[in-house]
């Protein structure tokens, strides 16, 4: 049976009452759910609704909200529809359920997120070290990790780059373009 996006939304909302949905154009539907029911939602999507393929798991660091957001992207080859499942974790103690028994390749994403963001997956059976070898700093993809200072302290730098200019500032000076306020918070 062909499923439309609206039928997917109503089916998910029937099963998981507190799922909030967002209907995007084209073939994309987003759901936000509590982290406790993520495995159930994904299993339901996979086994009942035919979303057989996990395309990606990504992590977003919402430093201002003190939260991490995990996004699971699943794809239905029959209906050609993508579903994004969002969930938020506490940033101080980011713990999530391990999902590699649903899709085996979730294992790889989880190891990477554990290393890069410091998210713990309960029951993830893998060595701590993944891509970074003997890394001793904090998880490097967290937004409060100051890459520039770390690099300056760790690696010797050849003199001669001191006159490097701030790209944004230079553009502003040369073209008179006015930067939006939020852009001023970020260097380069």
């Amino acid at each position, binding site marked *: 049976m062909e499923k439309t996006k609206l039928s997917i939304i109503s089916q998910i909302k029937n099963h998981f009452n507190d799922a909030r949905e967002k209907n995007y154009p084209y073939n994309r539907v987003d759901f936000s759910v509590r982290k406790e029911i993520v495995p159930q939602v994904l299993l339901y999507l996979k086994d009942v609704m035919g979303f057989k393929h996990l395309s990606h798991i990504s992590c977003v660091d919402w430093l201002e909200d003190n939260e991490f957001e995990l996004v699971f992207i699943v794809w239905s080859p029959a209906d050609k529809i993508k579903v994004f499942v969002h969930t938020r974790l506490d940033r101080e103690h980011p713990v999530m359920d391990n999902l590699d028994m649903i899709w085996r390749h979730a294992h790889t994403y989880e190891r990477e997120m554990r290393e890069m963001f410091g998210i713990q997956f309960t029951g993830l059976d893998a060595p701590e070290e993944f891509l970074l070898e003997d890394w001793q700093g904090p998880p490097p993809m967290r937004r409060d990790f100051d890459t520039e200072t770390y690099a300056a302290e760790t690696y010797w730098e*050849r003199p001669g780059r001191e006159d490097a200019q701030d790209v944004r500032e230079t553009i502003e000076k040369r073209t008179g373009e006015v930067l939006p306020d939020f852009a001023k918070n970020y260097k380069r």
Partner: protein
Amino acid sequence: MINDKNSQKIVDIIRNYARKHSLWILAYGTGCGAIEIPPTMTSRYDAERLGVRGAATPRQADVLLITGYLTTKTLKRVIRVYEQMQDPKYVIGFGSCTINGGMYWDSYNTIKALDRYLPVDVYINGCMPRPESVLAGFAKLQELIQAGKADGAKKYKENLEWYRENQKKVIPTWRMPEYNW
């Protein structure tokens, strides 16, 4: 054994001449620059007319060509590869990433100056260098070899402690064999 100075000089000239015309390279394709090696080696630019050819293993190679940024993880392997190579050996640093970090200057995981960790004989700059500049780099290396000035390996042996100290600074758990040359 030849003892007198003049005949040593003649031997050196012949030896250097032979060395400069058979540079077997071990292309350690880190970073993006490795993509310029195939055009350099194949018919368009044909590096083989300078005697430059690919070698299969470190022990058969003369030139270690490092083509871009090095993460600390790769640096470990590169050091090992370099130490396995036999004399005469030369290092070419390829691309601005090996010189001063290039556009990865603020990365948490890449070194910024290759010559702190390995002795570099020739740097080729550019991001990435075109095959012409790669060939110019090889020509420069040949010039240095003929003049007897490409002595990176000697420098490495003599200043091994300094190099080791730098290497160990970025590679905290040092699990490398100690060679006894």
